[in-house]
């Protein structure tokens, strides 16, 4: 199951890299693969979601090769997973709330990594934009993940 989910997450990341999303901050992706991560988190569990995320990260590092890109995606993924895991454990939020936290932390992690790597703290100026974009994608991903958790029969995944 983790293998199938990981493959799906990779395909989504790949599709995303094919579509150049012109955006205020370089290197920031909307995180389509997060649909799979949220789905796995709800269907299989947090540990499995971490596994899928980890496999996707390693794969992206091999394909895209650049150390900088790896640091961005890794810090985004780690922060986002931590936040989503904690919110999921409280059992007080739906997939939408969890993935909104994930979306924002995903962006925050990348911006912090960018600020450190580029040696300029001024990148935090993009924070408002990132919060809003993380929120928007988080809501969309949360709704899609909720639908897939509901519609995809347990016998399939």
């Amino acid at each position, binding site marked *: 199951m983790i293998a199938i989910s990981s493959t799906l997450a990779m395909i989504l990341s790949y599709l995303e890299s094919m579509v150049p999303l012109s955006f205020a*901050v*370089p290197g920031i992706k909307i995180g389509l693969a997060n649909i799979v991560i949220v789905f796995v988190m709800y269907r299989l569990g947090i540990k499995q979601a971490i596994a899928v995320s980890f496999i996707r990260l390693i794969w992206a590092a091999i394909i895209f090769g650049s150390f900088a890109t790896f640091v961005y995606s890794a810090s985004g993924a780690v922060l986002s997973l931590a936040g989503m895991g904690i919110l999921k454990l409280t059992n007080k*939020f739906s997939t939408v709330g969890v993935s*909104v936290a994930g979306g924002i932390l995903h962006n925050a992690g990348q911006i912090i990594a960018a600020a450190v790597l*580029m040696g300029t703290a001024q990148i935090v100026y993009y924070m408002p934009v990132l919060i809003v974009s993380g929120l928007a994608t988080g809501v969309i991903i949360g709704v899609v993940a909720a639908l897939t958790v509901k519609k995809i029969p347990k016998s399939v995944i």
Partner: protein
Amino acid sequence: MIINNKKARNDIVLISAVILLALISFFAIYLNRTEGGYAQIIQNGVETDVYPLDKEAEIDIPSDNGGYNRLIIKDGCAEIVSASCPDGLCISQGKVKFNGETIVCLPNKLVIKIVSGTDPDVDIIS
């Protein structure tokens, strides 16, 4: 069902808090901004050059990877008009002129930063 409503309510509280945070940080930045005097060129985290914003200029900035970014300074604004990077995000970031504003090009490891003086680090220390 009751549990789901509770969760939906918590979601909305979370989303509202996030929107509030975005608004506060936006206004904090917006109200504190002042027009800068210089465009600082930072490559690989090190300042390599600085240009006054009140003097029109067109500069090609070479990068380590053999690429370039063309910086134009006009009407008190700095802007990247063309670049070798594949994503072109530095171009789409448009014009900057306020202190602390940046144009970032990740592929070419370049940051254009607007500062008030030519040596802001010294300003901070003194």
